[in-house]
């Protein structure tokens, strides 16, 4: 059904998604057991971001390992320049997120710290893996839809992750105006958890899809589900 190269890539996709499905819920579980779940918006929760950053970095090393073998020399030449460029780009994206979140309704004069943390999280979950995998130029092209990408590749997974993360954060805002008066309706907890939830959901979907695809080899009737999931992905 798919070529060897595709097969290898699929395996990478699956494993990295699985890792996400494990490490992200564990982080959330641990902080909720520590009773810190409702303080995720504060700057004191920076360690969560550091953890996610490390995990994503390791994941991207894993995802890039093959690419490194092929284009080793070219990559090592301007490594430092690349890193500086990506850091600047990431900061820019973070600022864009910050301004965007405020424009779309976050408090203007207060809660800057919380908004900043949320925008860092969004940057970490959406753009950072993409940059780590492809580099700045390609990431920009991918983000703006100039360059298209085939289905069931690492890039497709990353773009889907990014989309669903933003959607999750977006949907998280729905609960804020409800009059339930619960502690977790504080800004930005629903959006923060929504972003994590969206990211997680995207990874779960990827794993499910790959599982179904491999199962469909044996049981052809399962391919209906695969087609269904393909439809679900936002068609460009």
């Amino acid at each position: 059904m798919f070529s060897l190269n595709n097969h290898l890539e699929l395996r990478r996709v699956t494993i990295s998604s699985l890792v996400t499905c494990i490490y992200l819920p564990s982080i959330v579980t641990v902080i909720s057991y520590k009773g810190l779940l409702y303080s995720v918006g504060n700057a004191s929760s920076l360690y969560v971001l550091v953890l996610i950053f490390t995990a994503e970095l390791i994941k991207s090393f894993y995802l890039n390992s093959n690419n490194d073998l092929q284009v080793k020399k070219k990559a090592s030449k301007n490594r430092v320049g690349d890193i500086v460029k990506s850091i600047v780009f990431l900061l820019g994206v973070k600022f864009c997120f910050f301004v965007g979140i405020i424009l779309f309704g976050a408090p203007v004069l207060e809660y800057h710290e919380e908004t900043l943390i949320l925008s860092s999280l969004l940057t970490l979950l959406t753009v950072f893996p993409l940059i780590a995998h492809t580099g700045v130029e390609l990431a920009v092209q991918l983000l703006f839809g100039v360059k298209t990408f085939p289905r069931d590749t690492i890039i497709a997974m990353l773009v889907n992750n990014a989309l669903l993360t933003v959607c999750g954060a977006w949907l998280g805002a729905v609960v804020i105006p409800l009059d339930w008066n619960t502690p977790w309706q504080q800004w930005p907890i629903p959006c923060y958890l929504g972003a994590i939830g969206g990211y997680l959901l995207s990874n779960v979907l990827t794993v499910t899809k790959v599982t179904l695809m491999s199962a469909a080899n044996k049981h052809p009737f399962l391919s209906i589900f695969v087609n269904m999931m393909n439809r679900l992905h936002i068609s460009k």
Partner: protein
Amino acid sequence: MLHWVQHRWTSLWLLITALAALCLFLYGFFPLKYHSGKLASMDDLPNVINGVSIDGQEVYNSGENSVILMVIDGLRYDFATEEYMPFTGQLIKNKSACLYVSVAEPPTVTMPRIKAMMTGSVSTFADVALNFGAPAVVGDSVLRVAKARGRRTVMYGDDTWLRLFPGLWTESDGTTSFYVTDYTEVDNNVTRHLDRILTPDEKKKPPFDLLVLHYLGLDHIGHLEGARSPKIKPKLLEMDDVVKKIYNAMQTWDRKGVLLVCGDHGMRDAGGHGGASPAELLVPLVVLTSDGFRCPHEAGAGGTVAQTDVAPSLAWLLGAPPPGDSAGRVLAALLPPDARQHLYLLHVLAERSARLVPATDKEFYKQFERAKAQFAHFLATGQQSAAKIAKEFYEESLEEMAKYLTETTTDFDMFALICATCILYLLAGALLCVTLYSLQPEARRKISIPKLHRSKASSLIAFFVVLLISAFTLLVACFITETKSQFCSFSPLWTIAFIAAAMTITVTYFIIKTTIENTKDLSTLRDLNAIDYLLIIGTLFHSWSFFGTSFIEEEHMTWYFFWNTLMFFILVRTIVVVVMYFAKRWSGATEFQEKPDLENRMSSVGVSIVPQWVLLIALHRYLRTMNQTGDRWLFLPDTADWLNSPENAFYLEAHLVIGSLLTLSICLWNIRFMNNYMQIHSALTILATACVLCHRIATNALVSPFPIIKTWDPVVIVNVFWGLLISQLIFELLTYIGLFKTCGFTLKGDNKFAYSKPKAKTEDYFYDQMEEPWNIDEVKLSLARSLTHIMYNDLMLIVILLMKPHNVIMVPSIYFTCKLTSKCLDHKLLDARKRKDTEILDILSKSLVHLWIGILFFFYQGNSNSLASVDLGAGYVGLREYSAARVAARMGLHAYAAPALAGAQLFCAAAAHAQNWRGYLESVWRVINVFALQRVYQLVIYCVIAILFRHHLFVWTVFSPKLLYDFVATVFSVQALCTICAIVLLTHASSWIAKKLTYKSTL
């Protein structure tokens, strides 16, 4: 029946029918107060209690009292403290007066509250709608029983009292309550009588038995400036002085004087009232008497009482029986110390309530029976313990009965409700069909005319058969359900309604049938893009969100969320388009074929669309902070509060001036679409804007370097303003007809309005006599274009006249939002695929997005689904005295300014972009269909919700106000669509007149 469907105004008629169905629904939902019609008299007082006789009249007698009821409009609970009213606070502190928390029932508006205080019965929600009319009370009231007992009743203050209880006053002087901008004169009008009326005569008796003083000033300050206004404190001090004056005067009387000071309702921090927040519901009730009164409660503060308790208390003090429908109790502080009288009083009230409660098997009824037995026992033996037990039992049963009565006063007319909802449902179905039909491309609709022409007679017969069937079904439904509904009462008036309902069902049946038969090609709908789907799904989903009460209270949140999503989608789309454009341009000629297409897409908007759009998002972010609305976060300070504080007056004026000038420039820009005499139009528009600014200066909203303007009369300025607008319209019509040309005036300009013969080159036009040689349709189109733009300009100018100063900025914002959004929603720009015909889809998405913009700004402006947010102040701009219709029109236009402006903008765009007269009519037809469909869809869903939640706790505080808002919105939709209809009719009419008068003669 196809011509019905193709008829341009079918959906307007359907919408009007929906309005009628909604009226039926409201009738079923808000039953008008059912008066028992029982008039109380002294002979009703029981003389026998469980076989023990007692002289009722003698025991009931409270002695000679002069009662003063001082109502301070909008006095809320925290105002009756020592801080605001030092004298009263002092009295309460040393227990010379009693302070109660009296709980007003929603709706917290003046007229129902007065009714409740005087009749002692809980008023219904429908009273709000009648609040402005104030028809006389039909049932029994304190004033009627007092009059029957020959008491002298005197009234000074709000003339609502006089309208509610005409002919029951011995002396009165009313002041109009609706003129809210005045808050000193209204109170002076009351106070000036005090010295005279309080002076006792030679027998040291005051010349009245009941004196009602109603002070309006406090409420007016609240409406104008809110509960935190610096004017509140002096006003309350003034009220405190009045209390002091009365208190001192009472000491000189030889008679017992009783003073009740209370508010009729509270006020929100923002100043409005009408809802059900504690600040509106809880009002203080201060009781004091002149004869060495000691408050029986701790620290002078009694517990919570109902507002209806005022009625029996007053009646008893006046020596009159409690009014027929009263269900309240006598205030504890006033109850006599004598056990016999005390118990007798309780007995009278309990018996009264027990008679109103039909259920005799309830626990409180048994409690009442037991109390009665104990009372009889006390009367027979004089045992104090029996008296104590009886008192306890009476009080318990009274409390329970009062609770029961307030809970069960409403019964819904279920048959009418369900009937109205079904009709609305059918209407929504018919409108959906008509809308889908209208979304077919024109060519296809032409094909689908059926070949089989039925004769007129046969379709008439079919119509009557269906009519009979539906009438019969309704009739059977009436009898099967055995309903007591008025709808099935078959009195002449209701029979008409009944037949109308059957007719509506028939007509909708035929419309649905015909459209389903003729709707063949909906392929246009296959091309909807993601943003269209967002618009449609958002509109559909929004109605369903009302199942949660907080989504009604915080409806603005839903809209802000939708709007943000839409802006985000469009932002991403536009960025993608622009980036692709640059990428393609820089990557060179490799994709040669795609370039012209992209250039074509970009040419209409330009690259600047992205920064413009970002600026728009920022503007909306700012406007969202302008007015805090809804319910839960209402108390948060917003930009409007900041602007309205005195030290920021400069910024407020800047908002006002910038808003007005931007509106002026938009109006001048729109003049392009008017007739050839642009100079005159520009002059009139500039003068009108100058009038608006002068009005602002004259009402002290704006400082000016010319002090002379301050002395001008605002009413005259506004009259000049109306004159300018009307003359502009008349001038336009006259130019069109060609009157000026025949009079010899000719001005240069392009010939938009000139009749010419495009076919003149075929000199022998004798051959096509049938065909019109003149360019009538072109001129018609330009007249329609010009009329819609005049309408839009006038609307904008009127709205900036009515708006609060900080909200004036909304008017140009609506314009820019509409302009930019319709540019961005263009399917040619956003869709990757190329399509030939996107016109229909453009119209669909544009009408939806204009609806959204309208509702969005409705909330930006500070409106909400609570009656408290209605701005009464706007109703009195340029009026010298109260006139119900004008005030209602102004208030309505102010509240619904944003939907009106957005809709007008859409029709302007439709007229401006139309290629020819037919195309214009087509697009207007489609837009009207979409508007009507959205309105009726929302109504039907909301009616279902209202029926399902009719026993919900919040039904009177959340669901009913929303229903009223929906009703008003429907009325205004009908009105708006009628205006468009009128414009088209006017165009036809003036075209006809022009034909008759001028251009034939200038041949």
